[in-house]
């Protein structure tokens, strides 16, 4: 059969180091340099599902990442896990996009890559976590899409049945390929790269494209292509009382409960 599968991956700061991220309040920008990075956790689940599909039906997996080439941890890990090749989209014109501009950038790259059967994305990223890019990209590509996918079954080589999560329950959806699936952590347990996989990374193809390579119109991508942006960054005034109770354990608890009563919380 041979499935042509694309997996969109994002390189994000390691969640254990989130507290080290500094914000440039004046520019409303994040300073992420020097923080350890990883592949977005849900993207690993997306890639794992793609790997399983490839093992079953044969084919090729291409991972796509937008970002700078200086640190390529996410791509290296993806290739070590078993992806066949990687595409890096790098151009200053792509920088500071909102979700729609991101979707457009990926859209133009995928146009250049050509025919595909299935695209896997993680439902959301640990940093921005909007869960928007998958559905938007599918819309631009004019293909069916489902979010929060927990299970994928192939009905035949051209159609799938997937189970997607609801808050308390699920929906089963049938769809025809080509399609895009945004997956949750329930879907599988991602494999660890093996030593063999790690040593094969050097042989795999890494393609780097800029805006011209994918013929992305400047008004559709990056900051220019963004409809929304952060006008400013503020300290959130929580307005909390911040009273720390004093005394022995018993005294502290007694005072706390008394205060709760006063505040009308109990």
């Amino acid at each position, binding site marked *: 059969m041979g499935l042509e599968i694309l997996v969109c991956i994002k390189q994000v700061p390691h969640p254990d180091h989130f507290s080290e991220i500094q914000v440039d309040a004046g520019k409303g920008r994040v300073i992420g340099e020097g923080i350890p990075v990883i592949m977005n956790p849900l993207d690993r689940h997306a890639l794992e599902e793609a790997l399983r599909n490839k093992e079953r039906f044969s084919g090729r997996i291409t991972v796509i990442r937008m970002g700078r080439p200086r640190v390529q941890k996410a791509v290296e890990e993806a290739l070590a896990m078993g992806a066949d090749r990687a595409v890096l989209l790098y151009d200053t014109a792509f920088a500071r996009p909102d979700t729609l501009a991101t979707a457009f950038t990926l859209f133009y790259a995928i146009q250049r890559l050509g025919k595909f059967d299935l695209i896997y994305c993680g439902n959301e990223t640990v940093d921005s976590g909007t869960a928007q890019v998958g559905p938007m990209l599918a819309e631009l590509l004019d293909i069916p899409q489902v979010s929060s996918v927990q299970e994928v079954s192939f009905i035949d080589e051209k159609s799938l049945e997937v189970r997607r999560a609801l808050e308390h329950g699920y929906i089963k959806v049938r769809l025809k390929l080509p399609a895009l699936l945004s997956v949750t952590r329930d879907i599988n347990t991602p494999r660890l790269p093996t030593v063999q996989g790690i040593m094969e990374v050097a042989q795999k193809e890494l393609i780097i494209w800029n805006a011209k390579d994918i013929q992305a119109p400047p008004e559709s991508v990056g900051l220019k292509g963004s409809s929304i942006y952060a006008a400013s960054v503020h300290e959130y005034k929580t307005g909390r009382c911040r009273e720390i109770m004093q005394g022995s354990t018993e005294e502290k608890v007694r005072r706390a409960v008394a205060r709760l009563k006063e*505040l009308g919380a109990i």
Partner: protein
Amino acid sequence: MSDSGEIWVIGEQRLGRLEEVSLELLSKGTALSQRIGVALSAVLLGDEVEKIARELVFHGAEKVYLLEDARLRYYQSEAYARLLAGVIEEHEPQVVLIGATEIGKELAPKVAAKLKTGLTAHCIDLYVGEVDDAPHIIYVVPGWGGNLVMHIICPQKRPQMATVKPGVFSKAVKDENRKGKIIRVKPDVRDEDFRRIETVEVVEESPKGKSLESADVVVCGGWGMNALGDFSKIQELADILGGAVAGTRPAMDKGWVEEARMIGQSGKTVSPGLFVSLGASGAMHYTTGFMGSKVVLAVDQNPQAPIFQMADIGVVGDLCEVLPCLIEELKKYRMPRKS
């Protein structure tokens, strides 16, 4: 503002039941529409859901665009997205608000991409404010590290779209005497809408234990509960207070709570009357999940834990000692809390 379009709230119903977030959005929508001076309308898709359309009117919608068809009974992604985009294009609202439910999170970006417009996610507030001496709707979104938030604006594209998580805003007040128009729009449902993708089954179970969303008290345990070994004392405290049990991500990873009870940026947001945080140090992606609570009580053994910045009342101590003591003390007051 120069925009003359309406404020729209996309109502969500499932199996004939209205999602509460729609009512929460109506309260914010009402505030916006009054401030800007334009009408507040709602849109509802489904089958035989006129009663729900009326609920939307009782909660503040001046108009409800009702799109009914047997084939729209369940959420169908292509049909819903196409019809919604269509009705938006026809009536040109200036703002469209959608609840960030599982379905809303998928539907909103599809519609935004169809309309090629901006979609802001995770708003914890929105209001009309000034940016560079011009009025804008400002979407407040949690930012990075510490207590920072970003003010997002959508200067050009219309409609401005935003999603808001359930539990962030309070519900609109119901007034059964409120009059509003229900406009039946005959949706142009096509076979083509179901050719590539179709919902074949919808299963909804009732949540185990007291629901997080409707609870007026939430008791949330974090990694520090390791010292006690499990969540039994948390459940006990929640029972005394008449509240729901929740956990942080580490607590969920440990298996003490299921994912549906995880509080945080990638989990649930709650705004109860009382939020009790036990043994969680207070990382930003956790605290955004309960920022809107009326009163916050925090217990942690580290006096420098950031959680104490986000709390009204703080108790520094060993959970093994504090928690049983707290339970005893509250028993004396004979709970549950007043409504």
